[in-house]
C-alpha cells in the first residue's frame, strides 16, 4: 500500500472520527446532567441535605463542611491553618493548638479525613485530619465542629499516609511520605546520598482513648520508601493495616524518573495485633523524641501545648510477624479495602491496570512462607499468591477506589479523567463516566466503612479550566456529584470547593444534626478570666499587663469606656459572650491590633492581645451582626503616654 493510500485511509478515519464526535455532541456535560438531575440535587429552601460532606482543604490546612446532594457549603473548619475569620491561631486560647517542636506553625497541608467508626460504621464522634508538611494529626469534635486536639508526629517527613482508621477507632495511622534520617543529631546530619543506609520511614499507630485523647502507641521503623495511602482491614482482616509504598527504588533526586524504575513497588501489610502482642511482652524500645501534644479544653475554652519526649519504636526486622510486603505494580497510590474486608485494591498510578489482592490468599501465603524474597530484610509475599486478580485496562492513571456496598468498586483515573465502576469479584468493568477534569480523590458516603450508603459518588477534580466563570489564573477546584443508585452512573451536579480537596468523607446528617452544640453553658465556663455577669466586668493592671474582664451581650460591651492604659502596655481583652442562645456569636476588634478579630461563641471566653504603640482614643466594636443594635455595640479605650499618671478607669453607662 502506498503512502498516499494510507493517508487516504487516515483522512477517512479522521473524517469519520469528527463526524462521530459531532453526532454524539448532544452528550455535552450540560446535557448529560439534564433530565431529572436538577430535582435530585434540589434541596428546597428550609430543607436539609441528606449528608454532611467533610472535605479536606489541602493547602488551606482546613476542612470544609458541605451538604450533599446540594453541594452547598456550610462552614470552613480551621485545623492546621490560622483562620482570621474566627481568630483561630490568633487568640491567646487557640495559639497553643498550632505549637510544634518547631515553634508556632500557622499553616499546613491537610489531605485526608477519617471519620471515627464503631464496628466498622460511622459513629459521628470525630473527624481526624493529617498535616502533610510539619507532620501532625488532628481531631475535630463533631458536636462543636471545632479542632480540639493536635498531635505532632516525631521521626517523620511528609505525613501523607494518614489518618486512616481501624474499625473501632482503636488506632489511626500517620506514616511518612518522605523518609528521613532519624535518631540523635549526629544520626540526622548525614549526606543525602547515603539515603539507602540512613533514611528511614516510620509508621505511627495513634491510639484514641474513649474520650478522644490521642497518643502514639508505637512507631514502626521501616525501610526508606515513600508511604502514600493506607487503609485498615475490617471484618476478617481487622487487626491488619495496609499501606501503599512507592519509591522502593529509594531515589532521592528526580523521583519523576528515578522512582518509577521498578515494575512493582509494594503494599505493606502490617499485623498490628501482633505488634500489640509483642509490646505486651515488653518488646520495642523507648527512644527520645520531641513532639507537641495540644489539647483544647471545652470548659476553660483554652488550648494547652505540652512537649512529649519519648516514643516507643518497633523494628520489624527484629520482631518477626509484623510486616510483610506484597508486590504491587508501578508506584501504587490508593490502597483501599472493600466493605467485606477480603479485598485490597492497589492503584498503581502509572499502571494501566488495577491489581486486587485477597486477604484469605495473603494469609495462606504468609502461613506457607510463600515468599519471593526479601526487601531490606523483610519478607516479600509472592505476587501471584496474594493476588485475587487484575482489572485489565480499566483506564489510565488509577488513583483511588471507593465502594458502594453492593459488590462494586469505583476507581478514579487522573490521566484519562474518568470514574470507572467495576465488579470486585469478577473484575469486570461495568460502567465509566468522564470527569471534568482529571479527577483525584473520589468519595462515596460511607465508602471506606463496612456499610457504605452507596447513593452518590463525588469526584474531586484537579483541573478546572473552563468549567466555571474564570477568576484569573487561580481557579476553584471542582467537585462532581454522580448518582450511583442505578446500573449507570449519572452526572447530577458540579459544585466549587474551597482550597484543594483531596480525600473527603460523608456521613448521614441524621448521625450529627441532633447533637450539634448550640451554645456553651456559661455556668460550665472555667476560663480563668471569664466573667459570668456584667457587674463583675472590670479592668486590672499587673505591672505593664492590663487585663480587661469584658462581657458582651446584645448590644453592648461591659465595660465600654476604658482609660489609664499607657503606650507599651500589653492589653488582654478577655471577652465573655454572656448569651445563652443559639447562633448569637459576638465579635471583638480594636483599631491597630496586629492580630485577627475574636469571634466568641455564646458562653465562651476568648482573648485578644493588643499592644498600643501611640497615644489616642481607640474604638473597639462587635464584628458579628448580632442584633438590631449591633451598630451601637462599640466602645472606646484611651491610651496615654508611657509615663502618664492617669488612673485606670473603666465604666459602662457613666
Amino acid at each position, binding site marked *: *500500500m502506498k*503512502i498516499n*493510500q*494510507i*493517508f*487516504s*485511509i*487516515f*483522512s*477517512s*478515519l*479522521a*473524517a*469519520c*472520527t469528527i*463526524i*462521530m*464526535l459531532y*453526532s*454524539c455532541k448532544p*452528550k*455535552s*456535560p450540560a446535557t*448529560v446532567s439534564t433530565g431529572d438531575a436538577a430535582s435530585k440535587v434540589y434541596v428546597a429552601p428550609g430543607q436539609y441535605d441528606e449528608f454532611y460532606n467533610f472535605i479536606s482543604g489541602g493547602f488551606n490546612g482546613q476542612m470544609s463542611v458541605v451538604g450533599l446532594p446540594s453541594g452547598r457549603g456550610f462552614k470552613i473548619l480551621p485545623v492546621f491553618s490560622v483562620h482570621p475569620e474566627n481568630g483561630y491561631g490568633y487568640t491567646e486560647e487557640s495559639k497553643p493548638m498550632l505549637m510544634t517542636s518547631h515553634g508556632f506553625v500557622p499553616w499546613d497541608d491537610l489531605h485526608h479525613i477519617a471519620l471515627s467508626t464503631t464496628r466498622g460504621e460511622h459513629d459521628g464522634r470525630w473527624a481526624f485530619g493529617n498535616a502533610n508538611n510539619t507532620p501532625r494529626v488532628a481531631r475535630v469534635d463533631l458536636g462543636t465542629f471545632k479542632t480540639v486536639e493536635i498531635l505532632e508526629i516525631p521521626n517523620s517527613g511528609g505525613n501523607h499516609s494518614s489518618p486512616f482508621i481501624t474499625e473501632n477507632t482503636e488506632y489511626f495511622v500517620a506514616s511518612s511520605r518522605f523518609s528521613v534520617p532519624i535518631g540523635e543529631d549526629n544520626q540526622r546530619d548525614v549526606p543525602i546520598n547515603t539515603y539507602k543506609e540512613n533514611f528511614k520511614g516510620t509508621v505511627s499507630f495513634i491510639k484514641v482513648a474513649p474520650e478522644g485523647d490521642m497518643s502514639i502507641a508505637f512507631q514502626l521503623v521501616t525501610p526508606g520508601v515513600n508511604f502514600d495511602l493506607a487503609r485498615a482491614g475490617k471484618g476478617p482482616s481487622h487487626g491488619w493495616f495496609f499501606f501503599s509504598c512507592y519509591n522502593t527504588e529509594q531515589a532521592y533526586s528526580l523521583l*519523576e*524518573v528515578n522512582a*518509577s*524504575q521498578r*515494575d512493582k513497588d509494594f503494599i505493606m501489610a502490617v499485623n498490628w495485633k501482633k505488634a500489640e502482642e509483642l509490646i505486651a511482652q515488653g518488646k520495642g524500645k523507648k527512644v527520645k523524641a520531641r513532639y507537641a501534644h495540644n489539647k483544647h479544653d471545652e470548659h476553660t475554652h483554652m488550648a494547652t501545648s505540652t512537649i512529649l519526649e519519648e516514643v516507643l519504636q518497633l523494628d520489624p526486622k527484629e520482631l518477626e510477624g509484623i510486616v510483610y510486603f506484597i508486590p504491587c*505494580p*508501578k508506584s501504587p497510590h490508593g490502597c483501599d479495602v472493600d466493605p467485606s474486608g477480603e479485598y485490597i485494591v492497589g492503584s498503581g498510578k*502509572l*499502571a*494501566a*491496570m488495577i491489581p486486587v489482592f485477597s486477604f484469605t490468599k495473603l494469609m495462606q501465603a504468609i502461613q506457607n512462607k510463600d515468599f519471593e524474597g526479601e526487601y531490606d530484610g523483610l519478607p516479600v509475599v509472592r505476587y501471584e499468591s496474594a493476588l485475587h486478580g487484575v482489572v485489565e*485496562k480499566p*483506564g*489510565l*492513571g488509577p488513583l483511588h477506589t471507593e465502594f458502594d456496598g453492593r459488590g462494586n468498586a469505583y476507581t478514579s483515573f*487522573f*490521566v*484519562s*479523567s*474518568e470514574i470507572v465502576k467495576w465488579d470486585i469479584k469478577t473484575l*469486570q*468493568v*461495568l*460502567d*465509566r*463516566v*468522564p470527569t*471534568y*477534569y*482529571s479527577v483525584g480523590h473520589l468519595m462515596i458516603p460511607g465508602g471506606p466503612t463496612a456499610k457504605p450508603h452507596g447513593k452518590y459518588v463525588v469526584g474531586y477534580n*484537579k*483541573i478546572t*479550566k*473552563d468549567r466555571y466563570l474564570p477568576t484569573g489564573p487561580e481557579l476553584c477546584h471542582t467537585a462532581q456529584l454522580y448518582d450511583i443508585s442505578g446500573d*449507570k452512573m449519572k452526572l447530577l451536579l458540579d459544585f466549587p470547593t474551597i482550597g484543594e480537596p483531596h480525600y473527603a468523607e460523608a456521613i448521614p446528617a441524621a448521625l450529627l444534626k441532633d447533637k450539634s452544640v448550640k451554645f456553651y453553658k456559661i455556668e460550665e465556663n472555667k476560663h480563668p478570666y471569664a466573667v459570668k455577669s456584667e457587674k463583675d466586668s472590670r479592668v486590672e493592671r499587673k505591672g505593664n499587663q492590663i487585663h480587661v474582664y469584658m462581657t458582651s451581650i446584645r448590644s453592648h460591651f461591659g465595660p465600654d469606656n476604658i482609660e489609664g492604659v499607657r503606650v507599651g502596655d500589653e492589653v488582654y481583652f478577655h471577652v465573655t459572650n454572656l448569651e445563652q442562645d443559639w447562633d448569637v456569636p459576638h465579635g471583638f476588634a480594636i483599631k491597630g491590633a496586629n492580630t485577627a478579630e475574636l469571634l466568641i461563641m455564646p458562653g465562651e471566653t476568648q482573648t485578644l492581645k493588643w499592644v498600643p504603640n501611640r497615644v489616642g482614643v481607640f474604638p473597639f466594636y462587635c464584628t458579628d451582626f448580632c442584633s438590631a443594635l449591633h451598630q451601637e455595640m462599640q466602645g472606646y479605650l484611651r491610651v496615654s503616654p508611657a509615663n502618664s499618671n492617669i488612673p485606670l478607669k473603666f465604666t459602662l453607662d457613666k
Partner: protein
Amino acid sequence: MKTKIIVITIVCIFSMSFWMCKNPQSQEAAVTVSEAGPGQSSVQDDQSEKNVVQIASESPDHTTLVAAVKAAGLVDVLVNAGPFTVFAPVNKAFDQLPAGTVESLLKPENKRQLQDILEYHVFVGVISEDMVTDGRVLNQVNLKNVTLGNKDGKLTVNDANIIGSVKASNGVIHVIDKVLLPQ
C-alpha cells in the same frame, strides 16, 4: 483501491458510531469514553502555551500519528496535565511498517492494540533533551520499557533516532524516525 477506502470508511463509521454512542458497558469500551462528552481537549484557550496534542496537530509530518491518537481515543488523555514525554514518529516512520499494519491497527477491533502501541510512545514525566542519557530506561504508559541512547550527542530511543524536540505546556515531544513496537 478507492473502493477499499470507501469500504473502510463505511465500516469505520458504523463501528465507531456503535462504539462511541452506545453505553460503554462492554469490555471493548477501551480506555476512555471522554468522547461521550467534550473532554479537556475542548477547552477554548488560544493564549496558553500549546500542549502536546496541539503541537502534533499543527505538524504536517505527524498527520498519521494524530489520526491514530484520535482513533485510539487518547486526545483527552494527552491534553491532561501530564506531564508527558511523547516520542512522536513522523509519517514516514509509519510508512516503514509492514504493509497492512497500519490499516489493521485502525480497525476498531484492534483498538486495544493501537492504544498499546501509542501508549508505548508515552512516558508520564518530562525527559527533556538534556536528560536523555545513554542507557536510561523509561517505563512507558503501557508498562513496557524503552531504552534511551546518547552517543556523542546522537539521541535515540530503542532503535529510533530522536531527530528533534519541542517543548509543550504539558511535557515534551521528541520527534523520532521509527515507530516503537512493544516487544
